[in-house]
């Protein structure tokens, strides 16, 4: 279980999250929705260790992990696919994957397994990673985090800027990830998509959770109200 307790997060002097309580059970898919600047990325970065928080603000399987860095979180099985993909331009696709595989945990997600699930990558392996199309890059970015074999995969806006077909490819990969038993936290602008792809959802506004529930039973109007604060 990954859990936050009254999580506060800051960028310098600016407070971005106010007392956020959230939990994700093993194997669950949880969606985070909210307008720009609501704090979704900040929340993911805090969980991944990119933003430091107080020790007791985040617990993983009962252990306090709040003041960890990214490398420690990877070792614990929490991996973040950052917004904007951020593949390494000086590295080929293969090198991007090799890098993460070597630094991550061992497990079922090897590069061979990735190539089985995504055959399209086979002929792209030796290409510089940023010469791929947006959709292909997104698949590589997710794959890059997968080969670290996380228990909790954090996805920040993975459908941003992609064509509908590419978005479908991305979500079918995530479906495979889900079937393998990995928990996913999904930040997604498209509320409808977010709800269909998740078990539960949280809605953020101005750094606070204003609504949460089970995705299948979600009231779209209530979400819209919470999203915009009317």
């Amino acid at each position, binding site marked *: 279980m990954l859990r936050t307790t009254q999580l506060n997060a800051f960028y310098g002097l600016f407070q971005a999250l106010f007392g956020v309580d959230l939990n994700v059970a093993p194997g669950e898919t949880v969606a985070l929705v909210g307008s720009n600047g609501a704090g979704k990325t900040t929340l993911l970065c805090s969980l991944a260790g990119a933003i430091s928080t107080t020790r007791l603000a985040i617990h993983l399987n009962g252990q306090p992990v709040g003041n960890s*860095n990214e*490398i420690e979180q990877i*070792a614990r099985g929490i*991996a973040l696919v*950052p917004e904007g993909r951020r593949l390494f331009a*000086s590295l080929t696709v293969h*090198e991007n994957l090799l890098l*993460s595989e070597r*630094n991550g945990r061992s497990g079922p997600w090897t590069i061979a397994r990735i190539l089985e699930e995504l055959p399209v990558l086979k002929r792209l392996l030796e290409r510089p990673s940023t010469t791929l199309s947006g959709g292909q890059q997104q698949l590589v970015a997710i794959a890059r985090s997968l080969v*670290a074999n996380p228990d909790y995969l954090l996805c920040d806006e993975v459908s941003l800027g992609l064509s509908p077909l590419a978005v479908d490819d991305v979500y079918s990969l995530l479906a495979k990830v889900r079937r393998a038993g990995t928990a996913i936290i999904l930040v997604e602008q498209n509320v409808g998509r977010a709800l269909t792809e998740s078990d539960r959802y949280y809605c953020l506004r101005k750094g606070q959770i204003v609504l949460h529930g089970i995705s299948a039973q979600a009231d779209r109007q209530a979400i819209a109200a919470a999203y915009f604060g009317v």
Partner: protein
Amino acid sequence: MLTFLEITLNGLMLGALYALFGLGLSLSLGVMRMINIAHGDLIVLGAYLAAFVMDQTGLDALTSIVFVMPLMFAIGWLLQSVLLNRTIGKDPMAPLLVTFGLSIVLQNVLQEIFSANVRSLEAGELSLLSFSFGGLSIGVLPLATAAITIGAYALTAALIAKSHWGRQVRAVADDPDAARLVGVNDHRLFSAMTGLILALISLAAILYGIRTPFSPTAGPERLLFAFESVVLGGLGSLWGTLAGGLILGLAQVLGQQVNTGLGAFFGHLVFLAFLIVRPQGLFGSAARQ
């Protein structure tokens, strides 16, 4: 005509030494985006360490590398871990200011320990050997310097292109935040990198110490030559620094022909001229800045 050829060769071989000075600086600027103002003083430190090892063990200058290189690697690792890693991240100019202070401390510590007198590393017969090649007289040591330089560049380039460590280095140079997200420990990487840089410096230091008499305050000028090699070659290009060093060596030797005291001056002039005409250097990717 022969003399002109000899001058050119001398310039190229001096340039090889400068390229070796610049190799470490190119790495630190390209990967860690920082400049170590004490870079030249560390070269001088290496030369003094070699002198110390030679005095203590009776080894000759080139063999002393066996002790000097690991020692310098350790010093580099410690320097980065204890001091410089604390400056990276927040203010981009903090590493420059801290290493400026380090430069002053290092020069004065060397002066305390070794006195301000000029000395050089004895290479015995090796520094006198030369062979004739079609009427030209080529020194063995300068030739060896050139060979060692090319070897060092080739090894470093291979390390960066082929090894896991090299991949991490390139990733961190591209995007340090994203690199951390895939488990790259950038602080430990930087410690290893500074260790490598000082190991490379130790090579340069011994070759330099054999060739030129040095003193505790000789550091800053070495830094300037290293820096000029990097910029002339083009920011972000490793092999470019080799080319830059060669150009600098040539400029200096040519300048010396005009007036023996003006070698470095001509180098500076060529550097500034390049800056005006072609600021990205020979092989530079302008984006890197």
